[in-house]
Each structure stands twice: as C-alpha cells, then as structure tokens.
C-alpha cells in the first residue's frame, strides 16, 4: 500500500497557482524527493501532505485514508523544518518526548522510546542540554529524532540541510539515507539541489511551475530526461536540434548542424528532433592523436574544477559542445586554441521533448 497519495492536487492563492495539479504516490518505505527551482511549489505540496495548507481541489491520502481536510495534529506525519524549530525552553529529552506526551504515551514507554531515538542520532549524552547549547548539525539530528520517535506514517523534510556547511551536509545525507533504510520509513524530501536529490532518492519528482515535469529513479531522470527543462535542471547538458537522415530498427542516423549523430529512438526520415548529450559522456582527444578519430574542433574555453575540467569545444562544422573530462584524463593539458577531435559514442545522444 502506498504511504501517501496525491490526486490531482491544486492549490491556488488568488490568481497564483502554487500547485497546478499534482499526482504523486509514495510507496511504503520509499524515499521520494521533490526537486525544482525556487517557487515551483515544492513547499506548498509538502505542506498539503502535512495539513498546514488545504488544497483548493484534489485529494490527499495518507496510508490510504482521505486526509485532505484533516487538521495537522490529527495526521500521523513527522516533519523536519528548515530552521529545525526546536522548542528553546525544553531540553533535548523533552523536545523528543513532546510528540509522545501529546499522544498520551505512558511515562516508562516514553522514556524508553526517547532514549532509543536519541541513541539513533548519536545524541544520548546531550539529553539534558537545551537546543541553544548544541551545534547546528546536532540540532538537525534532534529535529530528526523528534519527528521519528512518533513513528509517523510519512516523514516530511523541507530543505533540511540548507543551513549546514557542505561537509556536514554530505555527512547528514548519508546518515539520513541510512536511517531511512534501516527503519523502512516512507519519506518525502524537498530540495532545489539536484546533487542532493540524485544521491539520496529512490525516486525524484522534478517540478516546475506547480507541476511535476518528470518522475523517476535518479538514473531515469539524469540519463533519460523527458524534456528540455529536466535535462537542463539536472546538470550540464548539450541540447541540439538534429534532423533524421535514415533509420534502421531502433537506431537512427541524424545530422546536427553538420555533426553526424547516431541516436537511439525512432523517427521518420526528415524529422527534426531535440537531442540531449551529457557532457561527461563525450570522448575528447588531441587532434591527430591515436584513437581520437572523431569530429574536428578547437578548444574555445576551459574551466578548471579540481576533479574535472569543463571544455567549450567549437566544432569546425559549426555547433559548440560542452565536454567534461576528469582532471586525470591525459587530454587535460589542453589549452585554449588547441585542435581537438570529439567522438560521441552511439546511443549517448538522447531524444527529448522540447
């Protein structure tokens, strides 16, 4: 059974359509991420699951039960807020115990479960401290323990790592994912960071303008974006328009402004299609070097990122391509103006909706 179902959910504020019709099912034990740019409706969607926003139309079901208009405190939903929202006048122990107190869980069981929850996030030694006396990362973990201890039907997190530094954020990602798997908890995570989404999720729903533009596994979303928006949002990409020259089975020969491409995907001869090529999948070699044997071009610009180098390659036949190579790649000593050859392995160019 699915943990959460959203069915044709719409939220309008006056003339603004914050969420314009979202269908989403979160399976039990699944980690689903809502990913999208600022203002695309991620928070609004999450708040409708939590009950703080009532949909204009559509239905919200939690554990199969219609909760569309149910008050937040009557839903069994855990929430971690971006600023953690820990109760400053309570010790960590009391913060974590709060949900159990509200549920009338007897003292002995409450103490035991709070102890377990604090141990889970490695904060047992801090139980008597106040939120003001611990670090941001620790506060984050208390917020998590506080939401988990009530054994929610679904755990909701709205950009929970936004306030942490990069190092801590990476650590928390791993910790959260492990906890979620260990406890088998259903989880909806909101972020605008595609790396975060790719590295943690079972499935990602990419949102734009109040709509889910694509939903799928991280591999699906990254390798096989459904449209230009998803392709561009999920990282660096080359998007070209190509004309199909000939087809044979599931393969097609195409031409993108003078550059020959071999595509996966069908289409009729003469069709114009939009093609996406991930820059790290493109082979690059010095002109004339053995094994290059591709389309000639020239380095127009390059950017050094430590672990990788991003090249802007101007092909002699016209189009420009972005190519990303690991820093360790032998071609990495290329300079601006150097002659190069580019090869695109068959099947890498991917036809997308424009």
């Amino acid at each position, binding site marked *: 059974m699915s943990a959460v179902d959203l069915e044709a959910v719409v939220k309008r504020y006056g003339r603004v359509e914050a969420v314009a019709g979202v269908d989403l099912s979160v399976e039990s034990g699944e980690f689903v991420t809502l990913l999208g740019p600022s203002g695309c409706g991620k928070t609004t969607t999450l708040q409708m699951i*939590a*009950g*703080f926003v009532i949909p204009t139309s559509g239905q919200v079901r939690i554990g199969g039960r219609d909760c569309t208009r149910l*008050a*937040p*405190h009557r839903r*069994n*939903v*855990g*929430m971690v*807020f971006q*600023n953690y*929202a*820990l*109760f*400053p*006048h309570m010790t960590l122990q009391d913060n974590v115990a*709060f*949900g159990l107190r*509200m*549920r009338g869980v007897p003292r002995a069981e409450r103490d035991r479960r709070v102890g377990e929850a604090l141990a889970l996030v490695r904060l047992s030694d801090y139980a008597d401290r*106040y*939120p*003001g*006396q611990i670090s941001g990362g620790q506060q984050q973990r208390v917020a998590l323990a*506080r*939401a988990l201890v*009530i054994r929610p039907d679904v755990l909701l997190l709205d950009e929970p790592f936004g306030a942490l530094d990069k190092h801590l954020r990476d650590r928390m990602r791993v910790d959260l994912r492990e906890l979620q798997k260990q406890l088998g908890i259903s989880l909806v995570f909101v972020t605008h960071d595609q790396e975060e989404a790719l590295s943690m999720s079972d499935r990602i729903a990419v949102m734009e303008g109040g709509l889910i533009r694509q939903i799928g596994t991280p591999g699906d979303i990254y390798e096989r974006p459904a449209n230009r928006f998803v392709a561009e949002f999920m990282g660096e990409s080359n998007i070209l328009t190509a004309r199909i020259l000939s087809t044979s089975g599931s393969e097609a020969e195409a031409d993108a402004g003078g550059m020959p491409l071999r595509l996966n995907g069908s289409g009729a001869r003469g069709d114009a299609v939009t093609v996406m090529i991930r820059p790290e999948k493109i082979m690059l070699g010095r002109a004339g070097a053995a094994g290059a044997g591709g389309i000639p071009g020239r380095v127009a610009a390059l950017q050094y990122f430590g672990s990788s180098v991003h090249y802007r390659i101007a092909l002699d036949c016209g189009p420009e391509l972005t190519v990303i190579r690991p820093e360790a790649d032998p071609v990495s000593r290329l300079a601006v103006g150097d002659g190069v050859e580019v090869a695109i392995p068959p099947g890498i160019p991917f036809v997308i909706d424009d």
Partner: protein
Amino acid sequence: MTERSGSPFGYAMLAIFGALVAAFLLLPLVILCIQSFTAESFLSFPPPSYGTRWYRHVAAAANWREAALSSLVIAAIVTPLSLVLGTLAALGLDRGPMRGRGVLYGILISPMILPHIVLGLGIFRIALDLHIDDSLLSIVPAHLTITVPFVVISVGASLQSFDTGLEKAAQSLGASPLRALWHITLPIIRPGLVGGGIFAFIMSFDEFIITYFLSVQTRTLPLEIFSTLRYQVSPAIAAVSALTIAFSAALTVALMMRGQVISAGRIVR
C-alpha cells in the same frame, strides 16, 4: 564591546547630567521616606527626631488596613483578567489578518493616551446608568481599560520575536492549536506575560482618578491617602507612601531579576 569615542569632558558632562536627572526624579521620594520616620506629630524636614511611630500607627489603623486590603483585592482580580484579555488581544493582532491591524491596535492602546479624567467621566456615566458604581463590577472593568494596553504591548512585543514555526512543529507532533499555545507559545513568551502582569498590578494598585469617580464607600489606598490629606497633613501619609513605594520597587526589581534570569538562560545559544 565596541570602542566608544568621545572626550573625557563629554563623559563628565554626561555623568553630571545623568545624576541631576536622577536627583530630580528621586529626591522627592527620598525626602518623603526620610519624613516618614519622624517621631513628631507633624511633617517637617528634616524631622527633629526619628522613630517608627507612624508605621506602627498605620499598621494598627483600621482605615489604612482596609484600604490596603481593597487595593490588593482589586489588583489581584484585575491582574489575571488583564493577562487573559491582553494576551488574547495581542494574539489576535499578531495572527489575524493584516488589514485593519494598525487601527485595532490604536484603539486597544488608546486608554494610555486619553486623559484619565475623560476616561473616568465616561465610565462614571455608564456605571451610573447600570447602577454598578461604587462596586467591583465597575471598578474592575475601569481598571482593565488602563491595564490591558500594557499587557497588549508587552505580550505583543514578545510575540514579535516568536517563531510561529514552533507552533507548527508542535502541531505536526500531535498538539492541537490550543495545546501548542499552552505548551510552546505561552512558556516562550513568559517574560512578556510576567512584565505585563506586574505592570497591570502596579497600574491597578496605583489607580486614582477613575476609581475616585466610581467610589462612594469603597476606599482604595490612593483614595484613602487623598481623603486623609484633605483634612490633615499627617506623617501617616508619608509612611503609607513609603510603603507603597517599597512595594512597587520590590515588584519592579523582581521583574528585572526575572528578565535577567531568563535572558541568561537564553543567551547561551
């Protein structure tokens, strides 16, 4: 601490000026307190001889004891009512719709700027019509018009810095809005509640003008001081005044210490 700039001369001027203002404000009170310890039958300064004669007199006199008691009773009724009404009003202003908020706030705190004599006259008229003058039924509401604005301001200021996300967090953990208010909001804004409550108490305990309109038999402490003063300038008045000052000062100090304890607890973050 930031480095302060300025000449030593400037500091000296500031210190002298500050001392003068403090003296101007406090000197009458100090003289009054000294006079209250006179052993004579008449007020004079400095008193020729000292003693606690008048304190003993006040403690034994029925009229003073009754007046103090009725002032305390009124303030003890007015204070919790002010806290409930003022807190509800402040919450309403804080959480309600933006539109009309300013106007509503202005109306709520207007008794602070209206001349009390005008306020008293108005309340007197209504009390007469309703036949509730000279009773707690009119005196308590009359005091509330003066005390509630203090609670609205004090609690309102606390709510300004209160993160309503905490209430949402409580609700997501299973607390109804009312329980979230009780367990989360009220404890966190407690400094504002304590401050507003002490203000309300002092204001009510101290109130003269409006109570004067409404009272015939009822004697509060300020009324008793006034009526005694009309017939004789007894050192008893100085003693009563000194006691009132000590009482108010104790409350104020309690308030300040509270504030300090609370901020010390919070400042760690």
